[in-house]
Structures are given as C-alpha cells and as structure tokens.
C-alpha cells in the first residue's frame, strides 16, 4: 500500500504529499486519533495529491498518515440491500450507534449473519460469463439473483455449485474455472466501483412501454417509459419532492432506489415512517420491502453527495441485471452539481458558467445514460428508469444544471411557480412539459395495443385543447370578457376542466393520490368527450357557471373509489349536466 502525509486542509479539501504512485479517484484513508477517514483523490500533481474528504475535517492534524487503498469507491452488492437505509457511502445507518453520526463511523452495508435460502439456477459444467445467474435467493419478496461477478472477463465453467439450502452471504455458493483453469470462488457478495456502469447485458434498446406512476399528468399526458429518463426542475416549494414521493409510492416497479441528495433530513424521515405502512400497488406487500434509501442530507458531508447518486445508480443497475424493473429517484441532482462546484472552486479551477465546473454537462450526460431498458444474456429484460429533480437557482431554468439535464433527459416535468402559488398541484406546466416517448413509434404502437387504439393521437388532441384554452385566456384578459366571441370562453373553460379534472391531483387524498391506468383511460375518455363536444351558450357568464359545475362533479369523481356507487352517482350527474346543455335548458 502506498502512503502519504497530510500537508494542508481547506474545509473538505485535503492536500497530501504522497510517496509512490497514486491513481485518480482512488480512495485514501486519513488517520486521525482513533479513526481513518475516507477521501477520494481528485487531482494528482507530481507527489502532491488533492483529495476530497467524505467527512468533516475538524479532527485532522497536519502530518497525519494517509493510506492509499488502490481502489476506487466501491459498493457491496448482495442480498440484504432492500429495505436498507444507507448514507452516501453505503454505510448502514441502522447499524450506527448514538443519536449523532460520529466522524468516521463506518458500518457494513450487508448483514453477514443472515441466512438466505439459495436455489441453484446454473448446472455444473455450464459455460457462464459475468452477470449470468448462478442461483436465486429470496430477499424480502424478490427473487434476488446471485450472479457471476461483474468484474470477471471472458467465459467460465461452473465447476461446482451448492445444493438448495440456507447460506450466509459470505459462504461460497459456486466455484468457477476460467479458460486457463484458474478457480474462482463465488459468494453471494461482490464489489463494484460506483462510477462505472454495470454493462453485463446483451443489448440496450429504446424504451417502448409506459411505466405507470399513478399520476394522471404523467401517465396520460407525458408518460415516462420503462428504462426512460425524466427530470423535474422547479423553484423551491413548487412540489418536486412531493411529486417524486408520489411517483415512488404509486409506480408499478419491482425495486425502488431513492437517493436523498443534499436535501432535508425530515423528508427522509417521512419516507422512513411512511413506507413501512404503505402498500406497494404491485405486490400488496409494504413499500419499504422493495425500497432502498440512500441519504446524504444537506447537513451530511458535502463530498459524499456525489457518491450518493452513484451508489444509488449502481445498486439500481445491480437489480436490473436480475431482470427487474427498477426505478431510481434522486432529489436533488442540483445538490450534487453544487458539491462539484464547491470542490472545483476550492481547487481554484477555471470555472464554467455560474462557477460550475466545465465538465458538468458531460458528467450529467454520462450519469443519465446509465438508465435504460436492457435485454440480458438469458433473454430476460430489466430496466432502470431514472427521474431526477433539479433545483434551479432563483427558479430560472436558464442555468447550467437545468440546461445540461434538458439535453439528456427525455421527459421534462416543469414545475411552475404560478401554478404552485395558485395551489394547482401537481404544479406541472402542461404546455412547457413534454415526453419525448410520445414521439417514439414503438411507444405509440404499444399504447395502441395495451391502452387503446389511437391513444397517443388523442393525447396530442388534449394538449391542443389546453393550448387553445390558454391562448383564449390571454385574449380574454387583453380584450375583456365581452369583447371576445363566446367560443373563446368555451375554449378557456375546456382547458380549465382538463386542468382541474385531469392535471390536478391531490397527493394527500387516499383515493385521488393514485389513479390506475384503467381509471385514467375511463376519465380521459370522459373528459375528451366533453372537450370535443359542441355546446350552446348565449352569454359568457353561462360558460363559466356550466363548466364549474362539470368540474365540481369531475373532482368529486376523482375523490371517489373507482366504480363505487358514489362514483357512479357522480358519473350520472355528469351525464345529466351535459344533457341539460344539449337541450338548451341551462341552469341559472
């Protein structure tokens, strides 16, 4: 092992005089009185090394010994990851002692004393390669595959594999031999460097199927696809976190990775307390059973923010390699970018726009590219869908993080201050937001097949109605209520109806919070029926009155369980209200 000694400290930037070769991004350990603190090498100039410390630097003395580990930041992969709450470096927070996190406290990410029921999937004599499934264990309710270690290159023969039975994660479950006869013992645990993507799949294809989130404004209007990417920018308080948590609660996925990156601790506490009580819409089990939380909240070490998003992504890729549908959410990617900026400034690098490092766009692009829908070597499919929030400074989308993200993420959920102010939640701007997947022919085909013939065309038509309505609104406010044709009022109110009944959704109401695709289809067809219908009015005030009544009924429907007696009652009321207009017997 190479050694060095500390020669300088500026906040979490550590200068080290190294003896021997040092690798960029290698992890080094800085000795303090009773701990070894982890840091990552971020610059090497001759024997002078700059490292970012994943801890507070208050206890570091000049001249302290430094060990260079020769390894990059790695995670441990194996059964037991689900339901865990990790810090940004994959320390298990539950295993830590004390109310406060002591500087330099580390805990093992997996449980080495838990037995897992192992079922072999590979046969002795079989030829395998990295990522192939050797066996399966039950982790909570998920079939967790034990795979050929990702680091192995080339092909191997299964020499031996243990029988079905209970094993500890560090027990040898299989022995592989390489082409040159080298024997490799495989346990249920392997390590992988977080900044490198796990690429053991056969191919990555274009996302083509909707990932159901239970949110109408997403699923119906701007759907995200399995293996797709999306981002949610918005000024503070516009609903980024609530939206992401709503997606987390309702989405139809096998595994959830939640990365709380540099945001509030209380928001993580909310997940900790709520998820064990909530039911997963797919399995009916509790939500925490399929969820791993990686949290580096804003008061935790800044340098570990960057690590946290990579840890989350690597864990997501790990489960994708098992043929699972994984959703990873990061809140907020801006905090990660800011951490990069803090460090870059301390290193006195020449800054890019807004003092962010010049490589920021490349870093973001590289990260988003790790999502995707993949076919594995055995023909199974797995996906990693990624949705990140962005916290633009001053709420202005013309800033480096938002702009860099816009170039790589395929779905854009723009949160608008105006909508949030008016409590029109979720505050997703219906015009500015988009899903590029609506333009994918394979996505359109699948929607035709699995949702309804002509679905995407209908969605586009709906967007036209919204757009027309907003234009009409502008005209009305310029020219005045009386000075515009009645049609303008009708157009405006149709868009209001779509806003209130489809876009707005109460994430805090037990019924309204999650709308199944089937229900969305029903409501969307109802709403579009009204949106495309001709109505008869004689003066503009009638228009508002009429549509407000419809909106009220539609909202009551949204609050009622689907197909309940109540729901049907409102559906009938809706028909009657529409009928009345047809007959020209308007109320009031």
């Amino acid at each position, binding site marked *: 092992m190479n050694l060095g000694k500390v020669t300088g400290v500026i906040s979490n930037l550590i200068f080290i005089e190294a003896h021997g070769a040092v690798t960029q991004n290698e992890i080094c350990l800085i000795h303090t009185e009773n701990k070894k603190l982890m840091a990552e090498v971020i610059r090497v100039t001759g024997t002078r090394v700059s490292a970012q410390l994943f801890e507070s630097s208050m206890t570091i003395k000049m001249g302290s010994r430094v060990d260079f580990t020769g390894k990059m930041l790695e995670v441990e992969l194996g059964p037991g990851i689900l339901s865990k709450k990790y810090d940004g470096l994959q320390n298990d927070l539950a295993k830590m002692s004390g*109310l406060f996190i002591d500087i330099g406290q580390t805990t093992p990410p997996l449980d080495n004393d838990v037995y897992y029921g192992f079922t072999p999937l590979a046969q002795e004599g079989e030829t395998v390669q990295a990522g192939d499934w050797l066996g399966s264990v039950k982790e909570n309710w998920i079939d967790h595959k034990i795979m050929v270690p990702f680091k192995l290159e080339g092909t191997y023969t299964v020499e031996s594999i243990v029988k079905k039975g209970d094993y500890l994660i560090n027990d040898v479950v299989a022995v592989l031999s390489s082409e040159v006869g080298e024997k490799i013992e495989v346990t249920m645990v392997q390590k992988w460097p977080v900044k490198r993507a796990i690429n053991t799949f056969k191919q990555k294809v274009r996302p083509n199927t909707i990932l159901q989130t239970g949110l109408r404004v997403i699923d119906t209007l701007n759907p995200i696809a399995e293996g797709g990417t999306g981002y949610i920018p918005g000024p503070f*308080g516009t609903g980024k976190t609530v939206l992401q948590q709503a997606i987390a609660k309702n989405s139809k996925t096998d595994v959830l990775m939640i990365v709380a990156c540099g945001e509030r601790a*209380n928001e993580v506490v909310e997940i900790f307390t709520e998820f064990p009580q909530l039911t997963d819409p797919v399995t009916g089990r509790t939500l925490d059973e399929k969820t791993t939380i990686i949290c580096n909240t*804003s008061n935790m070490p800044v340098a570990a923010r960057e690590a946290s998003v990579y840890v989350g992504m690597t864990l997501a890729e790990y489960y994708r390699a098992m043929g699972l549908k994984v959703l990873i959410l990061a809140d907020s990617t801006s905090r990660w970018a800011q951490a990069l900026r803090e460090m870059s400034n301390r290193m006195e690098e020449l800054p890019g726009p807004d003092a962010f490092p010049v490589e920021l766009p490349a870093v973001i692009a590289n990260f988003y590219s790790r999502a995707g829908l993949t076919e594995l070597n055995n023909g199974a499919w797995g996906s990693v869908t990624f949705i990140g929030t962005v916290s633009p400074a001053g709420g202005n989308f013309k800033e480096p993080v938002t702009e860099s993200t816009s170039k790589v993420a395929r779905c854009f959920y723009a949160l608008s201050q105006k909508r949030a102010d008016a*409590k029109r939640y979720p505050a997703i701007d219906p015009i500015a937001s988009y899903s590029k997947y609506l333009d994918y022919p394979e996505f359109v085909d699948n929607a035709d097949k699995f949702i309804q013939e002509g679905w995407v065309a209908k969605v586009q038509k709906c967007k036209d109605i919204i757009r027309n309505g907003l234009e009409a609104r502008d005209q009305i406010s310029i020219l*005045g209520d009386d000075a515009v044709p009645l049609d303008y009022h009708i157009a405006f109110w149709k868009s209001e109806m779509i806003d209130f009944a489809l876009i707005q959704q109460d994430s805090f109401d037990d019924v309204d919070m999650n709308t199944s695709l089937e229900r969305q289809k029903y409501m969307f067809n109802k709403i579009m029926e009204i949106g495309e219908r001709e109505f008869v009015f004689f003066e503009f005030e009638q228009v508002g009155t009429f549509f407000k009544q419809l909106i009220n009924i539609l909202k*009551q429907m949204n609050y009622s369980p689907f197909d309940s007696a109540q729901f049907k009652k409102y559906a009938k009321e809706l028909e009657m209200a529409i009928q009345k207009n047809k007959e020209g017997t308007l109320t009031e």
Partner: protein
Amino acid sequence: MAFKRIYTKISNITKATCTLKAEGARYGELAKVNGMPAQVISVVDEDVTLQVFSGTEGVSSYSEVVFTGSPPTLKVSDLLAGRFLNGYGEPIDGGSELRGESRMIKGNAVNPIKRSSPSTLLATGIAGIDLNNTLVTGQKIPFFANPDQPYNEVLADVAMRAEADKIILGGMGLSNDDYLFFKNKFTKGGVLNKTVCFINTSENPPLERLLIPDMACTAAEYFANDQKQKVLILLTDMTLYADALAIVANKMDQIPSKDSMPGSLYSDLASIYEKSVQFAHGGSITIIAVTTLNEGDITHAIPDNTGYITEGQLFLKQDPDIGKVIIDPFRSLSRLKQNVIGKKTRSDHPQVMNALIRLYADAVNAKSKKENGFDLNEYDKRCMDFAKEYSRKLLAVDVNISIEQMLDTGWSLLKTYFKKYEVGIKEEFLEKYWNEEKTIKA
C-alpha cells in the same frame, strides 16, 4: 497543552484575514491575532490563513499570533438560561463567567433514522400561520420580509405565544433598538429565565456574526437533547449572516457564484437550519428565522438558497386594501403542515384552507382585470369583496384566535360570498359545515 504556539511574522493581511507560516495548525482552530479572536480557515503546507472576526484593523506584519489548539466551544449547562452572550459565548450582561462542559460548536449531524417525524402542532394564534401555513415543533422556517416590515415584532409575538421550554435568540447585526426591544419583550413577558440570547449588534464587527447561529444551535442541542426540552431558536437576520460569509469568501479570493455569494452558501446555511430536529425522547429544536429581502426579491441567492433548505417560508407583505401587514398566502408555505392539518386539527382544515386561497387567487385576477380597465363580472366582484374580508379576518398578522375559530371564520366567508359548487370542497365537508349555523365572533 504542552506549549503555547506563538508566531510574530504575518506575511499577508486582507481586511478580514491574515496569513502566516506556522506549524501544526489545525483547520478550524481558534487563535488570537493581536489579542483579537481569529479562526483557521485554510492550511496549505506551512501557510496558515486566519479569519480575524473583528477585522484586521491594527494588525501589522509583526503582530502576535497565538494558536489555542481548539475550535470554538460553548460552555453548556442550565446556567445558560437567562443569559446574554456574544458570538464567542462570553457574557455581555455583566453577569458571572459561564460554567459547564465545553462543547464544540458545529456538532455532528443527527443520524436521520434516529429522528422522529415532526408532528406536534405549534400554534401561534396568527391565522396566516396556523390556518394556511401550520407549523410543527422540529420545523425550520424563515420569515421573508422587506426591511421596513415589522418582522422582529412578529417574530417576538410568535416566540411568546408558541409553547417552548427554552427560547434561544441569535441576533446578527441586530440594531441596538431591536436588541432592546427583544430584551424588553422577554422581560415583560416574564420569560427571561427561559431565554438565552446570543447577540451581535450592528455596532459589533460583522464577522462575529458568523459564530452566532452555531452558538445558538449548540445551546439548543444541550437543552433539547441533554435536557429533552422543547427549544425554539430565533435567528434574525440571516441575510446579514450570509453577507458576512460573502466577505470572508471574497477575501479568500474564492470565485463567487450568484449575487457575489460563496458557492458553499447552500451547505453553510443548511448546516445551521438542519439542526432543527424532533427527537424520539420528546426534545425538539424548532428554528424560526428572518431573511430580509431586497424589494421582495426572493430570487436573490440568500432567500433562494434558504427556501431550498427550510421547511417553507412565511412571506410578510403590506396589503394596501386593508392597510395592514399580512402573511401572503401565495408565497408562504409550511412544508410540514401535512403532518398535522386534518389530523391533529379538524378534518376540514386542508380543504377549507385550499378553497380560501384559491378563491383569493381569483380575487387577485379580478383585481388586475379591473386595473387594466375591464368590467368586472358578478363573480369577480364577489371575489374582491371576499378578499378584503379574508385578508382582514384571517391573513393580517394581528389576528390572534384558535384554529377552530379560523376554520369557522373560513366557512362563514365561503358561505357569504360563494355558491357551493364554486368552492370545490368535498361533498362530505359541505354536508357537514355548509348548512351549520354558527355565530362567528370576528
């Protein structure tokens, strides 16, 4: 300590910092430069840079620098109660020296899984807060206010009414008048024995402000964790705190990000605000701060970063229609209200709150329509009448009623000005409250 490390050759002096060659200095340790308190903010090889809190006026190349070997600490004990201290944790009230355990300020973060969900209502009597932006213990929230608004008065009112075992005031760049105002208010209110005040007035050096929030939080952690008490921290004015951060960053030649603020502003502010916590053992730290704005501009880096950190904000605004200061229902937010409204308060609370605000938004639209010279329709007129009443009875900061009364007032406003289908409230609540006859005392 074995020996005192004393140096007498300073190589570089800026307005706020000085640099010298010294051995064995530790990042964050305290020192005295010419007898004035200073702190190590960078060590690069032999070059040690110190920020001198009082400014470097009078420091010369040959001034004496003495390193203390330890970072800033506060002596914590129950004896803190009733005391007035400066940024170094030294008495300014003429009382005796502090005694107790010396604790490093800027302590470690609470392990998130050891936190409890903050869900104990913190009532203030102000409807703009309790009804629309309900607070809970363990929350952190600032008032956003222009300098001419009575933010310190409102802050003091909230402190006096909120149920707390200890009130800790961190005053940064406080005018002497406001300092005396707080002192007076605490004395008259008979709560002096449960307050601790860390004061930096505008007469003190600005960099000393940098220590105030950490001192306040350290004292708070002692009472909230060691003594399991409910602690309320008041921090005013955090904008002046951030200004001091900018001075140091600037003298360190750091590349400023937006609005000349250091790139680490977010982390710096978060390390303070995240000290708010609800412990499982019942102790809690609630932080209510003040962030003054420049002409209501919340996109400036200070309020902007603050908003991204705190659990909402209470936006003070002058309402010309009623001639009073109100809590703006649009820009204000309590992110933790969900934990209590409709659960610890009456079940109609969320819906009534939202309906009132939505209709208030309609009134604002109507108003701008009028200002643009258009005729108002009958609905617009109703909205505008409603808005005035709503503002007077529920948004003004001088309101002091119970949440029950706020909700009843809300219903009565809805019934007076609107039709059932216009309020967008769930049927079950309409059935229960719309026809209910209740006399409201306004």
